[in-house]
């Protein structure tokens, strides 16, 4: 069974999914961050593969993607890194990135690599459901890789139903139409954008499909707010900020791999504890 489905069978509340950009801050941090988040008690990990022109992202993820590319990250390297931890890492994993990088890698080859490397789902924000359905749905579904679709507050109820019918694993509900990283200041925008709009409600109307809320979730308060309306939430920018603030680029103090893992473990633990309160 796909591990995302396993997760939601086991746990329907307060599911925490954390996004990070592969190759940031350092090229070789990928496995260390995955392990750190897994130990810290995250439920799901979204591994962002960087693109030069991330139009759906705000400045923080833009900067992490840019640095990851400078560090030399690409899909070959990333899949190698993931293959190495396939046996040891059990947490469900999602790959998230822009369509052009997948398209150049070739979609079927990308899917095969996902299967080989223990990936459970894929999010490609700029591959619309219609195009996915027409050209790629069969490939994903026959490989058992979940394609996860987004629903925005402006998505019409009919469309939301359609999108939800294609989505596998869960539905990604956006708090607002926004690029990533626009924080909601409690009391002003919250809880308003998180009150399920008609579109969001009908997207989930089938009852069976879990939903996670993302974009702008960054602390305990916003996480709890999201958890009241869905099965949990996704945090990206907030985690990247936390990484940038607490984890140096290696520079002068070349840490051993062991002590960098320690550092990352502590940082992930602090982060997850902060969010879960």
């Amino acid at each position, binding site marked *: 069974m796909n591990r995302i489905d396993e997760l939601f069978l086991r746990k329907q509340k307060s599911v925490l999914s954390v996004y990070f950009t592969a190759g940031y801050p350092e090229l070789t941090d990928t496995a260390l961050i995955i392990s750190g988040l897994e130990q810290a008690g995250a439920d799901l990990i979204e591994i962002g593969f960087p693109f*030069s*022109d991330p139009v759906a992202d705000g400045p923080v993820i833009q900067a992490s993607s*840019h640095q990851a590319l400078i560090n030399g990250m690409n899909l*070959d390297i990333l899949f190698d890194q993931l293959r190495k931890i396939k046996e040891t890492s059990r947490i469900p994993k999602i790959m998230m990135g822009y369509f052009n990088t997948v398209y150049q890698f070739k979609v079927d080859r990308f899917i095969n690599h996902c299967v080989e490397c223990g990936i459970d789902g894929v999010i490609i924000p700029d591959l*619309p459901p219609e195009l996915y359905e027409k050209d790629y749905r069969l490939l994903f579904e026959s490989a058992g890789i979940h394609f996860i679709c987004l629903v925005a507050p*402006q*998505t019409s109820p009919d469309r939301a139903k359609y999108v939800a019918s294609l989505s596998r694993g869960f539905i990604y509900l956006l708090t607002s139409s926004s690029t990533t990283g626009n924080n909601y200041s409690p009391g002003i925008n919250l809880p308003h954008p998180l009150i399920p709009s008609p579109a969001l409600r009908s997207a989930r109307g089938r009852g069976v499909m879990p939903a996670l809320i993302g974009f702008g979730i960054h602390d305990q308060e916003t996480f709890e707010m999201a958890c009241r309306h869905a099965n949990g939430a996704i945090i990206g920018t907030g985690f990247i900020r936390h990484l940038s603030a607490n984890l140096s680029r290696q520079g002068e103090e070349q840490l051993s791999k062991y002590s960098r893992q320690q550092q990352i473990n502590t940082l992930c633990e602090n982060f997850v504890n902060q969010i879960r309160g």
Partner: protein
Amino acid sequence: MNKSRFTPDADGYYGEFGGAYIPEMLVPNITELRDNYLRIIESEEFRNEFHELLRDYSGRPTPLYFAKRLSEKYHTNVYLKREDLNHTGAHKINNTIGQVLLAEKLGKKRIIAETGAGQHGVATATVCALKGLECVVYMGALDVDRQAPNVIKMKMLGATVVPVESGNKTLKDATNEAMRDWINHPDDTYYIIGSVVGPHPYPDLVSRLQSVISDEISVQLNARIGRAYPDYVMACVGGGSNAAGGFYAFLDNPAVKLIGAEAAGLGVNTSKTAATLALGQTGILHGSKSKLIQDQYGQVIEPYSISAGLDYPGVGPLHSYLQAIGRCTYIPVTDQEALDAAMELTRLEGIIPALESAHALALLPKLNWNPGEEMVIILSGRGDKDMDTYSKYFDHESH
């Protein structure tokens, strides 16, 4: 505005190119536009308003000027389609007049745009002043420096100019930022894209609005030589809007050879180039599938051209298609060739062209035409904005 096999299918594809690769946040806006643009721009009311503004505000029809001394030099008949004589100095205003009318009819209150050379930014700021609409223009920080006069104009026209510091700080980055703005303003904002790029329906919308260029050429040539089409139409290609507009009426006529000039920068074999159709692979950028300069992993390679308006790693999907089916030929032109062609036109005809347009002029010595053939070159804009670059070049030449 006729339908042909050169209009996209219902999903926005020209052959394999085009489409709408957009995140869910943009779907409501793009769907609204897609479902309404043809109905609106083909309505009598729209057409009347559009053509009245083109005539009385922008000064259309622009002349088709027979360039006598240039023709003598090249032993052929060269006509210049004088888009440089439009209000604001380039063809870009054909598009912004059309799109601002469309935005009004869709009830939008806030206009955003990207700009490279600043011509599209100025043309957008101009129509926003005309209509009393809020206007925000995204412009790469490098372009803010190299096209300073246009920045001053946009500000004077009341637009907010946002310098974009990401990437190469040029047109691609400005387009990213405009798309991000649109994602963040899903209700009140209309994005006036500046070329035949972006998700469907933009490439078709902008092609149709710019097709006034070739419609006029037809009429003007007919009056002049008794034939409604030339042997060649030549245009520079950044995103490809002046070329699309200049080619449009002739696409179905195989007797007309259509040639685009791409910016080769320092040369197609160098890393400093923007010759997308010579070097690009099929990929997805800014919402459509087209040729794209990228590495093997699909990372977009930062382009380079002396001309800000051509400094773009992609190209409109229509052009990728026209190249693929062999209908049009695209030829790379270097910075130096463009500068030389700009100087030549200035000294032979007393017309200082925009650096972008100079790329089209530089095609003349590269083609093997037959004597007596009729060549139309789209002079997409005037050189006022480029005086800084030109003066550096002349200082350099005189040493």
